[in-house]
């Protein structure tokens, strides 16, 4: 009955939900200007598509334990605007328009094994481990789950437990599901999975405590019979070699790292997995396989950390730095954040002749309940029965209390769930909505990340650009022709000009400011500077490159926002006032909205209690473009 209902809803969505972003039909006689086609035809000026490339279903060992029973099909139904059930029984539905593209990315190691253990009559269900896992004795359950979690992390093929036939069978179902839902011109579904390596750096006593080296592996089209998982190797360099082989065999593929913020310094460290110095071959192999990084998702932001960016007033944003399932804080000094990695990449270019961190940015959800939780107004977090209620995630006081006075918040909620975020999206500029166009756009890094808002963002750089281009109706095609878009390299020996154009999400807050973040190195030391490039409400940046406060406010008593502040769009031409012709540099754009209530404030408001005093009450939703690199010829 439930499945039937979902299917009926999805058919309804297919019939009526012709997405405007990707939609259009050949029968309608709309006068279309060149480059303005909506439909299935390629748009040389490119359209922006919003997607989620990080979704878990019941096939993931942890999601199954979180009581998730929904499938890859359910995930795609959700993405197309349908309704799915949360394990606690309530409905999940997108607030925004349907997604344009998606990938289901279940943990490949021990794929489908928990369901097999919980299915009468299977070999796995006869194991002591299975009996313990699905017993009623909490101690046994935890012990059994730790065994599986440890084996996924350490890449151990447990005798009599690990069954490649189950992995292969479930993987085929995942690939088939993507194939079934992939509708070129309307909706793109990629075959993918998560490679879930963890570098145990704090001893085994800490549960999963260690350096998170997780990656999502996304196939452009065809996929092999088996995924390469931690049981094959826990060294990501071996994954890249396998991916190189796959590409040779016709299965083009990329891997997208995520949660570098909890990698304990491992994700972007300045040596190889085995502690050797980085080489040109390493850098080339890495960037060939990992052109983009997921920098925002439910488990926090990986752009930068306040301790690394003390002069960036917006760096302390949705920071989550506790190692997975652990109270231990990740080593943030080096290797965890992309802004620093980009600077280190510039340095490496000079030292070894290649840049392993020459990557672009996306966001995604990492939902473990098949539906991404993007909206502050309606947050359901990610791990099913464990954080699916406001009380469980620490946004309202426990036991129906009406005040936070003398309340001790459950440490899991205090350390983890209350710090998590309603985020994020992968935005991609592509000629059309197809696997090939979107994958190729990701390969050239013409992507940006958002925190769950659908800000539209263009970013171009060129040596011949000037202010006058802003009013040119042909601006976009000229910018493509005479410059590079986000993700590109500007090779030359003079100061480039940049065109930045951002438009708000109609259903979120107006824009407050647009910033350029410049990253470079000086004598081997990473440097960064934040420049406000355009201000809302008629402001102009001061001598320190800061916009005046636009005075936008949030009323915490009802979460309403100022209606007369902020801009619907910000569009500007920008030059680096401190440009040095011989200095290699990287520039990316950050767009900030006016503040809105954080999800935890919405939760509290609905329950009629004050927001948790330990949490920020508001946030500024944002978008980050992939960088443009200035590469001096001299």
């Amino acid at each position, binding site marked *: 009955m439930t499945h039937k209902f979902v299917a009926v809803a999805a058919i309804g969505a297919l019939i009526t939900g012709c997405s405007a972003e990707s939609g259009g*039909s050949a029968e309608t006689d709309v006068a279309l200007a060149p480059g303005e086609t909506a439909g299935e035809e390629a748009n040389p000026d490119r359209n922006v598509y919003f997607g989620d490339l990080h979704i878990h279903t019941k096939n993931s060992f942890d999601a*199954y334990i979180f*009581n998730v029973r929904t499938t890859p099909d359910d995930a795609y139904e959700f993405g197309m605007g349908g309704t799915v059930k949360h394990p606690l029984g309530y409905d999940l539905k997108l607030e925004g328009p349907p997604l344009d593209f998606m990938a289901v990315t279940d943990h490949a190691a021990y794929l489908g094994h928990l369901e097999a253990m919980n299915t009468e009559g299977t070999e796995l269900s006869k194991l002591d481990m299975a009996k313990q896992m699905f017993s009623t004795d909490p101690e046994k359950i935890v012990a059994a*789950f730790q065994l599986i979690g440890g084996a996924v992390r350490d890449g151990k093929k447990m005798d009599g437990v690990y069954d490649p036939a189950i992995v292969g069978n479930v993987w085929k179902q995942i690939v088939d599901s993507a194939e079934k839902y992939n509708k070129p011109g309307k909706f793109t579904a990629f075959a993918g999975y998560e490679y879930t390596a963890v570098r145990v750096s704090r001893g085994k006593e800490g549960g999963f405590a260690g350096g998170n080296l997780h990656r999502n592996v996304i196939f452009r089209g065809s996929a092999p019979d088996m995924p390469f998982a931690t049981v094959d190797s826990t060294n990501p360099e071996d994954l890249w070699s396998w991916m190189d082989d796959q590409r040779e065999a016709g299965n083009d593929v990329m891997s997208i790292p995520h949660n570098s913020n909890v990698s304990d310094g491992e994700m972007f460290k300045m040596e190889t997995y085995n502690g050797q110095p980085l080489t040109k071959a390493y850098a080339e192999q890495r960037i060939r396989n990992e052109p983009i990084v997921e920098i925002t998702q439910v488990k926090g932001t990986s752009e930068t950390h306040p301790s690394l960016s003390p002069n960036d007033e917006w760096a302390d944003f949705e920071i989550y730095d506790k190692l997975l*399932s652990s109270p231990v804080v990740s080593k943030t000094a080096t290797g965890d954040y992309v802004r620093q990695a980009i600077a280190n990449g510039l340095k490496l270019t000079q030292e070894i002749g290649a840049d392993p961190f020459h990557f672009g940015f996306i966001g995604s959800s990492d939902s473990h309940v098949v539906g991404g939780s993007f909206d502050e107004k309606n947050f359901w977090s990610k791990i099913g029965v464990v954080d699916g209620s406001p009380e469980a995630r620490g946004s309202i006081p426990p036991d129906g209390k009406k005040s936070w006075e003398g309340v001790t918040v459950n440490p*899991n909620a205090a350390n983890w769930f209350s710090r998590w975020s309603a985020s994020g999206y992968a935005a991609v500029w592509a000629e059309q909505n197809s696997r090939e166009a979107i994958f190729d756009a990701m390969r050239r890094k013409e992507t940006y990340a958002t925190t769950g808002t659908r800000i539209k963002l263009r970013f171009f750089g060129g040596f011949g650009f000037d202010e006058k281009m802003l009013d040119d109706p042909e601006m976009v095609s000229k910018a493509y022709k005479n410059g590079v878009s986000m993700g590109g390299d500007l090779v030359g020996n003079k100061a480039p000009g940049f065109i930045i154009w951002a*438009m708000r999400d109609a259903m979120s807050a107006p824009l407050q400011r647009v910033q350029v973040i410049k990253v470079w190195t000086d004598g081997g030391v990473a440097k960064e500077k934040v420049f406000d490039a355009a201000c809302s409400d008629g402001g102009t940046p001061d001598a320190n490159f800061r916009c005046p406060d636009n005075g936008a406010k949030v009323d915490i008593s009802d979460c309403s926002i100022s209606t007369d502040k902020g801009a619907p769009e910000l569009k500007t031409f920008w030059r680096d006032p401190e440009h040095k012709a011989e200095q290699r540099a990287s520039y990316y754009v950050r767009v900030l909205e006016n503040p809105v209530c954080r999800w935890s404030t919405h939760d509290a408001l609905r329950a009629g209690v004050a927001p948790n005093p330990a949490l920020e009450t508001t946030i500024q939703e944002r978008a980050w473009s992939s960088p443009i690199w200035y590469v001096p010829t001299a």
Partner: protein
Amino acid sequence: MKIFRDPITHFVLIGLALVAINHFWTAWQGELGRTIVVSTAEIDRLETIWAGTAGRRPTGEDRKQIIEQYVQEEALVREAERLGLGNDDTIIRRRLAQKMDFLVNEDAKADDPTDAELERWFNEHRERFAAAEMRSFTHVYFSPEKHGSGLEAAAGAALTQLRAGAEWKALGDPFIQKRSYAAVPEREITRLFGPEFATAIFKLEANEWSSPIGSAFGLHLVRIEAIDSAAQAQFAPIRAEIMGAWKDEQRAEAKRAAVSELIGNYEVVIEKKE
């Protein structure tokens, strides 16, 4: 014990306990007497689940094990019941109620209607199957950031030109999204431009330039290019969908009746607070 100091313990405990309870009580059906009947329907169900994971149908040996497993579990569950392990446990009570609800649902299955019956029902519920009205439109955008207090004047001047036959592509400001949209329902326009704009353009006449319309982005002059009215559904092409909806409705009605009959067997006393 060390394991209980480990934070992951707390993390998974809640989830695991619920899974375990779910599993435990899934087997809770049939008479709880001294006879364990393994019905052919139950065997079919177990085999289907097994095949879904194993990727093949069970053979003789597999089937034997599936049944043994089931019998063992059933016996344990009944012993647990005799010991009263599930009494007064909210989660288990809820699970049992859910299970019963499911069973009532199963009983509420209706026979297939004749084509004539189904078509009569469809005619009474046509509006449910109609596709939403969709509109195709072109718009010329005016940016408040660019024009400031001159925004309305700029839009008004352009409107005069458009009504005199000027080419729309040359007018207005560049728009980061599309300037022409094909066949979009109001719900989508609301999400893309905001509710004010969506409501306004669904009231416009086709083929003429509108007065300035506000959106989340600024002002727009809009020309409706085509209106695909809410399409009347025809019976034959969507017979399967209609049948599904009919069954859902029959089932819901039968279930409502069955549940209220069950409740009717009880005297319900609701005590008032002091």
